[in-house]
């Protein structure tokens, strides 16, 4: 009996000697490259995000014609005293007009561990109906190989569409059903700096609440200033006759 027990244990122990073919290796002699766009959510497990969004319609400068997005490119491994070129591929699944997008040179300057890929988007009519989407994937060349498994690829979305923000549902009782005209006016009224309130939970000094960082709950006693501005918004649509898309055959926009 003892013999069988020993044999079983030996089998279990020896199975641990199996080679892990999937194990990631870091070759100190090699230089790796990856997208390093910082994640604003510092609590998230991933330090870098894998997608970027920009909307011309959400920009405080309503007349903006172009937007440059700076994408940090980070190097894993040693730096070099020479400028090094990296390679990336714009994947076929991307959807964009080539004449409206410009890329900067894909270069990691000498002695740098981080450099920037600048992508400039021209505002176009088409963006009002269809987002421009780029899928960029880093490729290997003589200087670098793609590193950091989760950040070898990045998605960049740019549009000119005033989408319903995530917070709208929370505030629906006061803003009514989503209308881009209401949202546009709210952006003008409740800009960063209008509401001096400190953070409700941390008491961090304001201003912090504005149209793109709305309080997480719609309680008037918690966020009285936000409600003050909702009154201003409501009054605007009382004083001004605004129709969806300017179409006077539709019902005039008013807040509840």
């Amino acid at each position, binding site marked *: 009996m003892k013999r069988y027990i020993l044999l079983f244990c030996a089998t279990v122990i020896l199975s641990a000697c199996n080679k892990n073919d999937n194990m990631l290796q870091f070759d100190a002699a090699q230089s790796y490259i990856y997208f390093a766009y910082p994640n604003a959510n510092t609590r998230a497990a991933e330090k870098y995000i894998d997608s970027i969004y920009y909307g011309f319609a959400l920009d405080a400068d309503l007349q903006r014609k172009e937007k440059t997005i700076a994408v940090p490119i980070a190097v894993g491994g040693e730096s070099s005293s020479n400028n090094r070129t990296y390679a990336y591929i714009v994947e076929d699944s991307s959807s964009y007009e080539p004449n409206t997008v410009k890329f900067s040179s894909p270069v990691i300057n000498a002695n740098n561990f981080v450099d920037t890929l600048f992508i400039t988007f021209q505002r176009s009519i088409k963006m009002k109906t269809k987002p421009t989407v780029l899928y960029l994937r880093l490729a290997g060349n003589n200087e670098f190989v793609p590193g950091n498994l989760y950040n070898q690829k990045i998605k960049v979305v740019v549009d000119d569409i005033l989408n319903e923000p995530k917070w709208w549902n929370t505030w629906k009782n006061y803003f009514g059903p989503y209308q881009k005209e209401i949202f546009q006016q709210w952006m003008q009224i409740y800009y960063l700096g209008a509401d*001096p309130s400190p953070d409700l939970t941390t008491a961090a000094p304001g201003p912090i609440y504005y149209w793109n960082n709305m309080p997480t709950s719609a309680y008037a006693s918690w966020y*009285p200033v936000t409600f003050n501005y909702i009154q*201003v918004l409501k*009054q605007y649509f*009382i004083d001004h006759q605004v129709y969806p898309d300017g179409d006077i055959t539709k019902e005039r926009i008013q807040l509840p």
Partner: protein
Amino acid sequence: MNLKNLTYILFLAILLFEGCSKDLGNYDYKDVNTIAIAGLLDNSHPTGRIYEVPFNDTVRLNPTVSGSLSGNDTSALIFEWKVDSVTVSKTKNLFYVANKRYGKISAEFHVTDKSTGTTTSYNCFLNIVNPYKWGYYVLTQNKAKDASLYCLSSITKKSSFDQVLLSKLDKLGKNPLSISGTKKYGASSSDFYNVLTIGIQDAVNPVVVIDSREFVPTLLYNSSSYVGGGDFVFRPTQVQTDLYNEVVYAVNKGKFHVLRKGTIALPAFINDPTDYKIAPNGVATPLGNGSYFMSIYDENNKRVRVWDNGVTGNEYAYVNDYKEISGQELMNGKTFLACSYANIPSINHIYLFRQDNQLYSYRLDYGADYKPKAFSQLGTAAVPTSSQIGYVYFDGRTSRWYMAAGKTIYMASYLGVEFQKYVQLPSDASGNIVKFKILDGKLMIATNDPAADKPGSIYIYNANTMVLEQAHKHVIDEIVDLHLGILVE
């Protein structure tokens, strides 16, 4: 049973049998000198052992120390006082100048008996506060209408009104309107500070909210605080704070505004077709329910206005203006004097009017659906005096009307308006009563004597016994308003 087990059992049995030995009680007891500390605040909870000390004042604590054997002989005792963990005295009595820092700091008194080496300790807190954290506050104006704030501290030994200057604010402004306030409580009923609201008509910041702990402005309201933008000018004519909430009500160009968290909201009923205008004293003092219900007296249209927010969570955003309330005509032709929210029995508004020499009191009742139902007359009576009626207000806490005329304050139950004499100033008091308030068991009365160099006098009564406790005659400029925010020991 083998020998080994027997040995174990025998060993355990010996241990057990030892416990049966008889206790002979022949211990050698000796009485030890037990130290008792008295004459200091004695409370099992730390909040009951706090000495309130104004900054820069001196703390003198003279405890009584006695021993169960040594009696009052303290020659064998070593004393040590520690304040904020620093030894400040090696004597029995503490003499400490509170000029290090603000806040609650610990104080420890250790008594060590040299004969036994035992130490007995007492712990308490010294709460080093601004002397004006609690007191009687007075808002005044000089002949040039410049506003000043005075305070008679209720915690310093000195009994005089000091002018209080606000850091960060050079001058308060001109044409002061009012001072009001609420209390912010901490861990106990005695652990509070005042949140004061000052209204000045012509000022860089016409409304200033002050934290009395360090007497610094915490909120400043001016034209740029208005959420509606445009060419709004904030020059209020009435300012009052809610009694229970951190909300300030202001009347600007006759319109009603709510001030919260540093912003001035749009006026209530901004597009009112009848262009309402709130009369002086015409905001029904809310008793914590202002977020839902509000009533004002509209002097443009000579009628009471009743508003609510639809009893929703959208606080202070009044959307209903009730025009067709039965009984409204009862007030026609009468002169408005005062109004207030009331809780008699639950939701009401109460109004006082005058016609010729007769007073009329009305109540607005609400239905079960929280909608205003009808006005009714509560009572009528002759004006109690031939003197000119001055300040009139309804005290919601006690449901009583108060009215000043000359040097006398009259009082009436809400049930009627049979005003009775409540208090009369001493015959040598100069000037007529301009303002008075009853709070924390005190009645504070202000008079102005225009002929005097310092027109303002203050009289403080015990509101329970009606005994005059303090009279400060001709000590300050012309008094505009007053407020009580005192610590009652």
